[in-house]
């Protein structure tokens, strides 16, 4: 009998189109989050890795130079919480900025708000870059 409970239990748990979880599929996005572009570099996508690193690091450093605000972990206003999540995406850059207390709390001049947005977007772009590194690692993208 084709649909008996015994036969069902013998069916493989992995569907044919499921991708196997390799070490690189974990290491590449994790490293890519920690150091922007490093996920692509470890997968030998040199050009893409360097361009991603330059773009994200420059955006983050410009945000700091523009006196943008670096969010701390918080449980208050929803926009502050989202700002923290965005900042956290920058990985080691965010950790460094928190350790060194970079990014003033109060906005000193008109365009400093752009700096805050640069810092958040740098983190969010790094999340996208880390996801891209994952897709390369599992073979979904060349």
């Amino acid at each position, binding site marked *: 009998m084709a649909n008996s409970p015994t036969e069902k239990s013998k069916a493989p748990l992995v569907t044919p189109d499921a991708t196997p979880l390799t070490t690189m599929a974990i290491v590449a996005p994790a490293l890519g989050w920690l150091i922007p572009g490093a996920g692509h570099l470890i997968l030998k996508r040199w050009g893409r890795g360097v361009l991603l690193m330059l773009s994200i690091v420059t955006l983050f450093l410009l945000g700091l130079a523009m006196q943008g605000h670096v969010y701390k972990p918080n449980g208050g206003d929803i926009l502050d919480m989202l700002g923290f999540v965005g900042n956290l995406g920058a990985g080691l850059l965010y950790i460094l900025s928190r350790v060194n207390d970079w990014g003033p709390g109060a906005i000193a001049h008109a365009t400093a708000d*752009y700096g805050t947005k640069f810092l958040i977007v740098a983190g969010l772009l790094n999340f*996208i870059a880390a996801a891209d590194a994952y897709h390369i690692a599992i073979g979904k993208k*060349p």
Partner: protein
Amino acid sequence: MTIELTHFSAAVVFAIFASIVFGITQRNTPRDMVRYGLYCFAMFVGGVLVAGWAMWLIRR
């Protein structure tokens, strides 16, 4: 070090770097990456110009 960019230059700098990341991550071949990156850049800067003129018209 403190940098004070104008509104427009801040928007252009933002567009450059965001477009590079979008181009690399959202397309599969180098040619498509460049094309999509340029498209995103044009949309960012074009959006800024349209929004700027719209605000100018509203203010009048």
